């Protein structure tokens, strides 16, 4: 009797083991084709879109492979489709493996299509597909997305998922591109009061691009030469109610990222005009934002009053005019005042641009306004979207210069 019981138990356990394979959802790395980048374009056919898939080969580049694999690291296909969910099935007539959006990193939309009102229903379907994660990035490219992927040939990072991850992470860290995840896109869309910025990228380099400041470029304007990939990430595309309306260059994007407390910029290197230099030389400085902005609002009048204080810490890293700050404290103060004036002017310029040209704040400023209302109805009656362009905004950078760089060496050079 006991033996029978034991056998029965064993049988049950063995049958349970079978369910560990996950039934219908059994997946094998070898059998899947992981889409890393998804491009969306206008199609020549009416009402359709052109979907481009950048598919990574999981066999390439892994250490365990020992470099034995001679397969290409990626595969790119473009075709017309109704949306990019059913497109998975269509793609299978070309790709031998099962298409999966599980590891999707970036969705790239051509500028032309992003400006089309049809873009909104197409991108909203990312919410419906549970495979697409909301931390994937949304980017806008200047050319057609299908061409963008073809021209994008990273030299060092042949594995596409690493390339996009590094490129985007570094761009966000130094503030030249916004942190434009799908999550942020949809929350800006649902909030309905603010604009959204998506990163701007291109592989087309403008021929007539002159030298500008270190961050005044939009993607495609930086004239680089050498042995390299031509893809550039810089600047941003501005979306209003889910559709692209305008674009900003790297400097503007950076300033807005500094104004925005919800992104973390870490390592911003900038050039500031050197007040002591006679030949328009520029200082290099590292900017860090240590605290959150202080924002006070008075929304009672006809023109709402908003005051933003930005705490910034600067480290001066070069000294082209060879001024010795250690000996001369007055020059220190002069430099600080100069920098404050310079940055205030920059912020005021972009602030004015958001109020007059964009007619909306590209970062979630309305969240600060909500505190002044007790119920949602009151807030809706106030109508932030209408009030913002009229608002009287003052921006005060609160600058602390942490370090003036090494003084001694400069001193010695001068005395020689």
């Amino acid at each position: 009797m006991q033996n029978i019981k034991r056998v029965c138990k064993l049988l049950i356990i063995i049958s349970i083991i079978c369910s560990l394979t996950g039934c219908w959802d059994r997946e094998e790395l070898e059998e899947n084709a992981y889409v890393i980048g998804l491009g969306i374009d206008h199609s020549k056919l009416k009402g359709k879109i052109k979907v481009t898939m950048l598919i990574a080969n999981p066999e390439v580049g892994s250490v365990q492979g020992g470099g034995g694999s001679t397969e290409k690291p990626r595969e790119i296909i473009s075709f017309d489709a109704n949306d990019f969910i059913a497109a998975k099935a269509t793609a299978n007539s070309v790709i031998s493996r099962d298409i999966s959006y599980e590891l999707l990193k970036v969705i790239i939309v051509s500028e032309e299509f992003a400006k089309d009102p049809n873009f909104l229903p197409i991108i909203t379907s990312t919410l419906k597909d549970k495979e697409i994660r909301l931390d994937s990035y949304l980017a806008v490219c200047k050319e057609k997305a299908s061409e963008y992927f073809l021209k994008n040939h990273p030299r060092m990072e042949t594995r596409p998922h690493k390339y996009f991850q590094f490129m985007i992470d570094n761009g966000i860290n130094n503030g030249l591109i916004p942190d434009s995840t799908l999550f942020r896109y949809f929350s800006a869309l649902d909030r309905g009061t603010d604009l959204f910025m998506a990163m701007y990228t291109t592989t087309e380099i403008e021929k007539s691009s002159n030298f500008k400041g270190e961050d005044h470029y939009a993607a495609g304007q930086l004239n680089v030469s050498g042995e390299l990939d031509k893809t550039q990430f810089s600047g941003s595309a501005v979306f209003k109610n889910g559709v692209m309306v305008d674009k900003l260059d790297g400097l503007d994007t950076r300033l807005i990222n500094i104004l925005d407390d919800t992104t973390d910029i870490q390592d911003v290197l900038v050039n500031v005009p050197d007040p002591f230099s006679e030949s328009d030389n520029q200082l290099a400085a590292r900017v860090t934002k240590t605290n959150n902005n202080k924002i006070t609002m008075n929304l009672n009048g006809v023109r709402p009053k908003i005051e933003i204080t930005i705490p910034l810490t600067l480290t001066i890293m070069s000294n082209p005019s060879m001024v010795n700050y250690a000996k001369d404290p007055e020059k220190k103060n002069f430099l600080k005042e100069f920098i404050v004036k310079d940055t205030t002017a920059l912020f005021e310029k972009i602030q004015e641009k958001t109020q007059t040209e964009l007619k909306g704040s590209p970062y979630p400023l309305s969240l600060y306004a909500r505190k002044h209302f007790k119920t949602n109805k009151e807030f809706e009656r106030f109508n932030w979207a209408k009030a913002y362009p009229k608002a009287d905004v003052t921006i005060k950078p609160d600058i602390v210069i942490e370090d003036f760089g090494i003084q001694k060496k400069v001193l010695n050079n001068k005395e020689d």
Partner: protein
Amino acid sequence: MKQHEKVGIRDYTSIVILMMGTKATENTPSAFYNDVQSAAWMIPLISAGFFLIPLFLLLKTFSVFQGKDLFVVVKKLLGKYIGFFVLLYLFIISSLAVSFDTRMYSDIIHSFYFRRTPLVVVYIIFLLVCVYGAKKGIQHIGSVSYIMVWYIIFSFVLAMILSIMDSNIRSIYPILGSGIPDIIKSSIPGTTLFADLVLLTVLLSSMSSFKDFAKGTWIAFILTAIHISAAAFIFICLFDRSLGGLGYPFHTAIRYFSFGNFLTNVETLFFPIWLMAAFIRFAALLYICTKLFAHIFHIKEAGYLIPALATIYLLTGMIPETPLDVALVFKAKIRLIAGPTFAAISLLLWTVALLKGEFNYAKHKKGM
């Protein structure tokens, strides 16, 4: 179902915490958000305030009948016939709640994790595990839940901390959401969050003592009220206005964040632990429902009833066609009535006990 051992306070409290705490991980926070927007986090607290009096009176009534369970008390206070209908009502409501809740959990598993597996298969496997747990008896459920409760709390707190990193506290304003009248209106059906506490009196006869039961109930009541409120608060901060459109914010959240660049797709870490909590919750509920059913219809071998009842729940749970129907039509109705009526039943029991002079009698007995 022979029972020798009794359930102690430790095991009992963890069962109750898991039973009610898992509600924060399904559609409850977003349902509250749709009612009152940014004030959703207040509802669990205010509902707890509403439920405080019925719960206090319920425990007071039971304290008179030291260690007697719901069946004895109902029979003694309401008599055979009214008592029968009250118990039947409790059984029907909790059965419907269990069947739609299990369906919702299967929907979550199906739509987030096992997309290709047919829903019925997921549902059957889910219920099989619960049946197995329920058949083992409440003592086993209790000890398993005590073992698991720390891991579950830890993983939930971790998930919340990761959500806080991406969230913005200013989303909580306007502080009153859609206004005070709406908050009060939604808080009354909100008491359904704690309706399980009334059902749990069924377990009194397998508890070590009434004191443990009362103490455990209070601890779990306060903890879950804070827990659900905190979860709603964090989800509002994380999702802001998008929360209204999300079915299951917890699962959307764990799919969103990652431990830096290195460890992504962390939902595979949280999912099994959440699943354990769900199994314990429904095993306990299944056990309670079976006990109710067995008592109402005088069935002695209640153990054989569990698979049968689970099958019925499976069949009723499959009635709604889509997950949307489950959340917005079927479950919403149960949510609307369960809490207030369960509170009314506790009030009824107390009033009858007061009128019958049970409290005086008990005092007399103590005095002597």
